[in-house]
């Protein structure tokens, strides 16, 4: 029983962090058809900015978090204007933007390597203390993360469902031409989505580094996992991605316990491969009818 609580606790925390990292990716792919390979670097950037804001600028942790989110939102905008916008005018957008963002991500990551050095730094935005359930001690930090994640996801859900901006984003994802005919300025939607994705990545990066540590290359793994979550859920399906993220977190916690950390990623991947062979469009994705 204790083991179960432990696994669920870690699993939910992991899942929450993945979910926050994934929402942005899913929105960006859904509306833009863009796989943002710089996402991991932005996530890492968020963690470092938060660190620098607290340690070097003496900001209050909440302000530091906001600062990180803001900076990363701006980076998202920068990516829109410098890469997505010009490439949307040419052919092969999907491939080109994939590669361009690989380059951009590498630049960001190496700038952080240059600026902060390769050695792990602890993330100062952390809460001490524990919550005790039965015989199990759960770090308060985990509960905190879960709380923040829930709040964020609720906020995003409200944005998407109840505001006209959110409706415009959903409409653009579903049918870009129709959205244009409704008077939606799709360019602005793209910029908004990339900015939002950046901010969410920053928060996710802060969360992840608060449990692990800050290193310049920490973004690669979470990004890959976030992508896997998106793929399993069906790219573009935001709500499915959240569910899949939590499931992935639980699964990872379970396999880590049973098989050890080393094998958990491999097992996860095997499962994902099997899922994709069984359902090539993801668990919740719908096959797109291609009109020939």
């Amino acid at each position, binding site marked *: 029983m204790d083991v179960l609580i432990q696994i669920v606790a870690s699993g939910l925390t992991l899942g929450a962090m993945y979910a926050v990292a994934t929402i942005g990716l899913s929105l960006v792919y859904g509306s833009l058809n863009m796989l943002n390979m710089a996402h991991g670097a932005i996530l890492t950037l968020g963690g470092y900015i938060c660190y620098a804001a607290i340690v070097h600028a003496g900001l209050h942790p909440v302000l530091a978090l906001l600062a990180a989110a803001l900076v990363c939102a701006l980076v998202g905008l920068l990516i829109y204007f410098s890469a997505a916008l010009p490439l949307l005018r040419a052919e092969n957008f999907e491939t080109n933007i994939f590669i361009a963002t690989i380059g951009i991500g590498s630049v960001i990551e190496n700038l952080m390597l240059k600026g902060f050095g390769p050695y792990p730094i602890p993330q100062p935005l952390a809460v001490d203390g524990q919550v005790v359930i039965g015989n199990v001690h759960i770090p308060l930090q985990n509960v905190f993360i879960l709380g923040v994640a829930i709040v964020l996801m609720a906020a995003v859900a409200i944005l998407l469902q109840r505001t*006209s901006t959110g*409706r*415009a984003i*959903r*409409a653009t994802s*579903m*049918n870009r*031409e*129709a*959205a*244009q*005919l*409704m*008077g*939606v*300025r799709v360019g602005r939607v793209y910029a908004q989505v990339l900015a939002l994705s950046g901010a969410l990545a920053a928060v996710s990066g802060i969360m992840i580094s608060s449990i692990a540590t800050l290193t310049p290359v920490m973004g690669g793994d979470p990004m890959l996992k976030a992508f896997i979550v998106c793929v399993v859920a069906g790219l573009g399906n935001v709500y499915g991605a959240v569910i899949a993220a939590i499931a992935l977190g639980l699964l990872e916690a379970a396999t880590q316990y049973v098989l050890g950390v080393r094998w958990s990623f491999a097992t996860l991947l095997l499962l994902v491969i099997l899922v994709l062979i069984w359902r090539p469009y993801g668990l919740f994705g719908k096959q797109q009818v291609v009109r020939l």
Partner: protein
Amino acid sequence: MVDAALDIINASAGYSGRIVLDAIKLSARKGELTAIVGPNGHGKSTLLKAISGLVPVTSGEIRLDGLRIDRLRPDQIVERGVIQVPQGDLLFPAMTVHENLLMGAYANSGRLAERLDFVFTLLPRLKERRNQTAGTLSGGERRMCGIGRGLMAGGEVLMLDEPSLGLAPIVIEHIYEVIFNLRREGRTILLVEENAERIAEHADMIHLLDNGRIAWSGLGAELMARPEIVETYLGV
């Protein structure tokens, strides 16, 4: 020209190097139903897309109430009141009927409740299905939702691309009843239709589009009186 809402003046348009429309000259007069007919694949949809700003106009002009709109962004054209109900509806499948209608009012959200009322009165089936996801509607209901969505925008000129496409005859009649009602109420309507017979009676002006050019223009009655045109171009 006082009466023209929409003027297309020697406009050519096309996709990446391929010219689809060649020096089109026609007007949609205020309060009238102007129809574009012709065989499929000859540019009718492209014309509407060019007016809506989705396909670039390579030469010539398009004017709304005398002001040029051919260089504007699609969202700007919608803001100025030129609304298109596209071919195949292009509804937002995961949104409800209600949300689709709300999207219709995106560019012009004033008097929302009033306009929703108007649409629901005109198309009562939509009211019944207002919380249903658009992807689950029947063909006729989808068409109605598309038209309702177009009406939510208010707007000066309503353009419809093949409203009868893929529907059963009885449904088509109902759809056209709605359209002709709108015409009677004084809306400016630009209609693209493959089957000219159906609208010949009601259209104030018919233009025949063949191979990207206007091959014939005139009144509906005139068209029906010229069976050779009907046969050559409309292959009925």
